[in-house]
């Protein structure tokens, strides 16, 4: 356990880490596998009043109320109509458990830290907020997403 934690933190240079890659539209993203609790199919969510557009609502995850974040909307893409083929990645973010709505999960990648390239300087705020690095896999570009900022920030909203 302690060892996997240290790979999550990426403390050791060249340490191995596992990533789950998924698809939103034509783009590919990945998150650290240690943050992922489970992957499940899409079920209709109960809408929440006064929620930001990227919060689809809440669903019942074995008795717990789980908010669903439409990752496409959150990352600033056109969010498509959800169908049964959509997938929810249940992720642990800090103390909270959140469902991330994506189009499909594609792969599990095992990479070393040095494969992950730093995010190039771009003007996009979304990139600055979420993208932690880029990977090139078989000619495809996969963005590594940091989940800390996925949920709306209470303090920012209130201000």
């Amino acid at each position, binding site marked *: 356990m302690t060892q996997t934690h240290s790979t999550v933190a990426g403390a050791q240079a060249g340490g191995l880490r596992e990533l789950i890659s998924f698809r939103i539209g034509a783009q590919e993203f990945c998150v650290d596998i240690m943050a992922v609790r489970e992957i499940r199919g899409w079920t209709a969510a*109960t809408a929440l*009043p006064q929620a930001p557009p990227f919060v689809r609502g809440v669903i019942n995850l*074995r008795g*717990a109320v789980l*908010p669903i974040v439409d990752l496409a909307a959150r990352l600033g893409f056109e969010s498509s109509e959800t169908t049964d083929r959509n997938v929810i990645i249940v992720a642990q973010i800090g103390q*909270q458990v959140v469902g991330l709505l994506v189009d499909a999960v594609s792969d599990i990648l095992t990479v070393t830290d040095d494969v992950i390239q730093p995010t190039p300087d771009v003007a996009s705020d979304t990139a600055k907020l979420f993208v932690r690095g880029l990977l090139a896999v078989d000619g495809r570009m996969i963005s590594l997403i940091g989940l800390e900022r996925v949920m*709306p920030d*209470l303090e920012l909203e209130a201000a």
Partner: protein
Amino acid sequence: MDPLAAIRETFFQECEEQLAELESGLLAMEAGDTDPETINAVFRAVHSIKGGAGAFSLEALVRFAHVFETALDEMRSGRLAATNEVLKTLLRAADVLADHVRAAHDGSAVDEAHTAELAEELKALDPNAAAGGEAESEEDWGDFEFKPMAVAAPEAPPAAGGWRVRFAPRADLYAKANEAALLLRELARLGETTVELDVSALPALADLDPEAAYLAWTVTLTGAADEAAVREVFEFVDGDCELEVSRLAAAGADDAAPLVEDTGETLDIGALLARVQAVADPPPPPLEAPPAAPAPAAVATPQDPSSPPDGQGQPRKPEAGATIRVDLERVDRLIDLVGELVINQAMLSQRVMEAGFARASGVAMGLDELEQLTREIQDSVMAIRAQPVKSVFQRMPRLVREVAAMTGKPVRLVTDGEGTEVDKTVIERLADPLTHMIRNAIDHGLESPEKRAAAGKPAEGVVRLAAAHRSGRIVIEVADDGGGINRERVKSIAIEKGLIAPEAALNDEEIDNLIFMPGFSTASEISDISGRGVGMDVVRRSIQALGGRITISSRPGKGSTFTMSLPLTLAVLDGMVVSVQGQTLVAPITAIVETLLPKPGDVHSLGGSARVIAIRDTYVPLIDVGQALGYRAGPLDATQGVALLIEGEGGARAALLVDAIQGQRQVVIKSLEANYQQVPGVAAATILGDGRVALILDIDTIVAVSRGADSLRAEKRLAATG
């Protein structure tokens, strides 16, 4: 947790129980209870705390408990009358003792000066000390007949003869600066004593070790002192001496009875070892059989001579039912699981209905039974968490004493319904608001004694704290018999603070409710007692956070009453399931007064989007829930929906317009905040029979928000973060 820490934790838990026992005993005595068993219970409580504290070497606690116990012992033996003055001192001493226990528990500091002061007061209570000596002490107890209860040693003769005490100090006793002569003098205060010095162990001068102990004494004590009292004299040298206490053969006899007689086996061995060692090895090493600890059960009970001499048959208070300590987490886990069971059972029922089984079919009937059972299990599990409000009520007398002393207002606290049970979480979160309200009631509610005299009221103000179950909720009232709310002043303060417009026309109830406004209470008018930076708005918020409501009623010159209505549990809720724009929502049934189908002529527009509905000649605001929560942009045609007439906090009425009512159901409350955040207008979430999440409406916020009080949203956020 290491075993010692666990034992220590248990000790502190028991201390809390003993302190509660102590306080309720003293209060009962103050109220005129003269039952000797009450005094004994009080004494035992302090004694147990002292005993436990000694085991954990909590010196300060032991010292104070000892002084306290001495005073109580005087009272127990009838030498100290239980006057009101004395009891007031004892109650304050109980507070200090509680402080010491808490300090020992969490390592905080104790007010040493206050402790010393009370220790002195307690010592001054001792009639012997007051009379200045031991000489007169004997005549004080000629009137009392003592019946040793002898619970621990039933074979002991019931005669009030006396004791033979053999006392052989070890070198350690002197090394710790104790003095045998003082102990003997202390013993002499318990009755008439004959002291014999045993010098048999004294060696020749040449062999004498000046640091060793060679002397022993045998004291024959006649009188009515009980064994615990005798042993108590030696409490502080426990372990540093050989001590045997044996009963004299016959009452008043002072002939030499065998030294070891009638005592437990341990003592026999101890005595034998003591002798063997005294002969064989003059400077005695520590002995493996120290004197037995004083047995609290073996206390003498002063009895009315007219009552039948029943010795052991002394009627005791009925014992509380057997209890076990259970880790709260296990209970909560069980409650969670039962919540899941309820949801699952509902889902199963729904599936069975969908599958088209007839109502009378075996499957449907079996399901009905299952539903009954599930409900019963749920109720029973909830009852595990239910506790009497006593645990929070009993903290209040102390608070009242303190605030009364600070304000110089004599106050009497009357409590009622302490046995009313409610969920433990509710109880825990009640302590702060109640504390604040009682402080307020004394500080602001009650008038000064002079004003009371002028108004023809008794000087002593009364604060009443009462709890009762009422229609599935617990209602707690804090009432004072003071001057009532000064509405003129409240209004002028509210205008000054900009909370209301100067020309606002408010009725009495609205003015009274101003004190709950955020910002009403500010630093400029905070006294030390009520202040501490929280106003009534914080009280209201904490009550609302518990799903409760608080209202005030006040009559000038008669006093004010704050009434809190709280759910019995925070885990389930009786709800009305409604649909709004395709969404399923749950409205707490406790807030709903009635439901009605609006007719075309009932609904009137008040300009803009504001609408009112006529309900039997009164107009109440009509709020479209779908609009309020942002589910739809335009208003619903009122005649197409159902209106729920609700009564919010402070009795304000409004009608909530929904599309349809689906039914009533008990729902399990699930937190939205755990994984998300607070949502304005939504109190919590629940899971319905179809497995989907439904939101539970926060009716008061919806009403407030649609009144245009946008500030309330900000207030909600503050409450969430604060």
